[in-house]
């Protein structure tokens, strides 16, 4: 079995409110989501939200480190007992940012079939948030308090309501078999 395999991809040709990777096989060890995204709303910044297995209970939390590149402080914040994983924060360009600018990010979920809570690592780059004056970079540690295997990953926006055409989402499986 190949070690690093594309499981599924979704490149949007129309505005779309949510992207879901479903029927994720249990044959890999880790999962990686990579995306380039932009919101139809949200002003300067919108935020990618993740849920697994359709679960909207308060099982998600995260700890985030971020900076805006404008000479300000590097900050850290936290979310607990959330109904979705807001990782990484500031992850998506909003509709007032420079046209054709998309945020990039990666979400790494190790041991996604193990019967334990799931740690999540995330990183995002949000360029040109304020038309040349700001950009955001963030790294995040997430936790999903769910012991069942992950079989689906759903992605939405905090404000949105839509991902714009041209957004791309890729799900990879990494195998240590």
């Amino acid at each position, binding site marked *: 079995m190949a070690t690093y395999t594309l499981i599924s991809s979704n490149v949007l040709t129309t505005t779309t409110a949510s992207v879901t990777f479903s029927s994720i096989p249990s044959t890999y060890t880790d999962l990686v989501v990579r995306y380039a995204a932009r919101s139809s709303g949200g002003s300067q910044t919108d935020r990618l939200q993740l849920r697994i297995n359709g679960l909207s209970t308060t099982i998600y939390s995260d700890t985030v480190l971020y900076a805006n590149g404008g000479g300000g402080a590097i900050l850290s914040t936290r979310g607990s007992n959330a109904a979705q994983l807001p990782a990484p924060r500031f992850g998506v360009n909003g509709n007032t940012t420079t046209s054709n600018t998309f945020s990039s990010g990666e979400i790494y979920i*190790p041991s996604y079939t193990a019967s334990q*809570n799931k740690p*999540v690592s995330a990183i995002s780059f949000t360029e040109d948030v304020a038309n040349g004056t700001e950009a955001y970079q963030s790294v995040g540690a997430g936790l999903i308090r769910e012991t069942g295997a992950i079989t689906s990953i759903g992605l939405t926006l905090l404000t949105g309501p839509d991902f714009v055409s041209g957004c791309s989402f890729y799900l990879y499986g990494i195998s240590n078999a």
Partner: protein
Amino acid sequence: MATTYEKIATTTLGTAAADITFTSIPATYTDLRVVFVGTLVSNNYNLYWNLNGDTSSIYSRTNISGNGSAAASNRASNEAYWLNTSPGGISSTIPSMTTLDLFSYAGSTFKTGLIEFTADYNGSGVTARYVCLYRSTSAITSIKISSDVNLNTGTTATLYGILKA
């Protein structure tokens, strides 16, 4: 086409153990990556990384971290290991993830690494990145991961080789 990203070895602990060590690492890749997911038998201890069984004081690191309320940056020089989880620590019950990217590990220059520590515990925890230097010109043939206490049952570490050729 050569495989670019390949598993070299993996270990899942069936019982608690003092360390996970990858030995006899071949020099055939360009970079190495370790993915460590697990817990310790006691709360809030550090994780140590040693290369080639070397405990001489030629390791250093600079890190940036966030604990949910503040960001911080620290440095340590002339240490006997690379350390992660400072500040904070690894839980005994909630798994966290640490990755090590070790670049040009088979070359004859000093070795640079990037450690990423991901540990959210729903109300506490830390996210951190460490840039690391190991002042040895020897090729890396072994990597040891240990702590002040045993690594817990179920802890997993996988070593991958990344090839540019």
